């Protein structure tokens, strides 16, 4: 049997210039889309900055140190909101860091069988999936009535401590801080757990082999080794805490005062924006844009640092 290949239609042909251009066009298109992500970040910064120029010209840097927010007199300053943002984030971190790291340890070491761990990890991830506004609703009708008696008791018995110097009267820094805790807990837990789980098993084996108990291994070997990952997790949690809006707005009381008391109402930059933007006009819009720009820059910096740390850890 002989094979006849002559005079057949060629099965291979050169690509036409149209097809080559189509290929280049396709790659170019995906490139534009990819670069547009970085573009969006820059565009957000520019847009918000342009809108805040009138306020920047009027108030300058004094905006950050000014305590008044008065749309009638057109005098604006965000010091109370910066204080509230930092205070709620701090309460959130104070409660979420130990809880999150403890949870991460418990779910990354072999305390529980793997199927149970998978379910628990999933449940904690679900915490992050519940919409912020639902936490706010829950906070108003469940959390505040729950912690008010505690606040009242602390005020009557320990009122001389500045933190408890006002009576719990409903919304305030404390309920807002607790909801922030719940909302950043999944972030801190997940990334701490990742960095603990990705440690080489040799570390554990060596430590146990030298006679260390499980918890000595965790405290003296695993936690120090995963330290930078955990710091990254905390930074990401901080970024999330500072930008958290709806639940905080519904629970913080929205009063532009600075006070040490944990049960007094306060305000954050994010909740200021949420409360006032829809009805603002004139210079107030610009002042709100300025406040938004400050929040954007702070969270951008925190997130960028956190990403750097987490990326470096993931490379190891």
């Amino acid at each position, binding site marked *: 049997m002989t094979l006849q290949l002559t005079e057949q239609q060629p099965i*291979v042909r050169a*690509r036409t210039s149209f097809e*080559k251009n*189509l*290929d280049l066009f*396709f*790659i170019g*298109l*995906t490139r534009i*889309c*990819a*670069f547009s*992500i*970085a573009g969006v*970040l820059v565009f*957000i910064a520019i847009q*918000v900055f342009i*809108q805040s120029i009138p306020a920047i010209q009027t108030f300058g840097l004094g905006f950050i140190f000014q305590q008044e927010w008065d749309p009638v007199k057109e005098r604006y300053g965000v010091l109370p909101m910066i204080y509230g943002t930092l205070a709620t984030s701090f309460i959130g971190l104070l409660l979420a860091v*130990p*809880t*999150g790291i*403890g*949870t991460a340890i*418990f779910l990354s070491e072999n305390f529980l069988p793997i199927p149970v761990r998978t379910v*628990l990890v*999933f*449940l904690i991830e*679900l*915490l992050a999936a519940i*919409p912020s*506004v*639902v*936490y706010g*609703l*829950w906070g108003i*009708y*469940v959390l505040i009535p729950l912690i008010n008696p505690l606040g009242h008791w602390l005020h009557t018995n320990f009122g001389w401590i500045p933190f408890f110097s006002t009576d719990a009267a409903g919304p305030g820094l404390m309920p807002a801080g607790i909801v922030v805790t719940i909302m950043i807990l999944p972030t801190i*837990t997940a990334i701490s757990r990742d960095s603990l789980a990705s440690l080489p098993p040799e570390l554990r084996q060596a430590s146990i082999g030298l006679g260390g*108990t*499980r*918890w*000595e291994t965790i405290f003296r070997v695993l936690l120090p080794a995963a330290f930078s990952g955990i710091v990254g997790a905390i930074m990401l949690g901080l970024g999330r805490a500072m*930008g958290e*809006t*709806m639940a905080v*707005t519904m629970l913080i009381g929205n009063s532009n005062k600075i006070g040490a008391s944990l049960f007094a109402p306060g305000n954050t930059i*994010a909740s200021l924006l*949420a409360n006032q*933007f*829809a009805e603002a006009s004139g210079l107030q*819009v610009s002042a709100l*844009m300025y406040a*938004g720009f400050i929040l*954007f820059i702070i*969270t*951008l910096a*925190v*997130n*960028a640092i956190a*990403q750097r740390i987490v990326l470096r850890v993931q490379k190891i």
Partner: protein
Amino acid sequence: MSLTRTSNDPRTLLGNFFTVLAGALVTISIIPLLAVLSYVLIKGASRLNLDLLTQLPPPPMVPGGGIANAMVGTLVMVGLATLISVPIGIAAAVFLAEFSTPHTASWIRFSTNVLNGVPSIILGVFAYAALVVTTKTFSAYAGAAALSILMLPIIIRTTDEALQIVPQEIRWASVGVGASKYQTVLQVVLPAALPTILTGTTLAIARASGETAPLIFTALFTQFWPNSLSQPTPSLAVLVYNFATVPFKNQQELAWAASLVLVFLVLTTSVVSRWFLRRKTF
């Protein structure tokens, strides 16, 4: 020195103490989830009926009513945001996984992660500056634009990861039989990664449906049916926010019912996508 460790050794006791402590912390982490879910279920279920899904929200002091217009509004805005963010997100991920140099890719992945961390209220501020100020009206477009930026990083990340898992041999085989680059990507690589991409998109949609901050001053709210994309548009999330703080019992009940709808949506998508991701194609 003995090599055995007794059960009342201080080191053992300390270890047991920390085990109990860590277990307690896990329990503390789970409690809020169960508390929120049970309250939403108990308080929201009383209003789960046909009226909820077909009626407009009532004015104060009027009984009954539903959240139908908010459901339509959420559907429209999230749909629009999906139409914007899915093509751009998938194309960007294709560039990252298929065509870029490692250096460029690392920078764009970094930007994607940073964009993911931008507070959602800032996206609202941005949409307000870019669309509400220029068009002088609150609109579904502005809300959808803010939501689409929120969805982009989620879609890019999941698609990027999905594409990286597709084995290199499949691309070689495709190129080997004469396919060009776009044919390889569109007809071979993307179909192989489709289940994961769909999962990512679903998660992004679920996340966007529950977001309030980007909508309160871009799409605003209305008690009526939304009849144009360039007018204020109601949404479930903003309805919960608005009705949570009014002193009327009927409105508060509707807020709980709307929360139940949102939470149900988020939970089902999370569970389904989990189950979907388990069945790996490769």
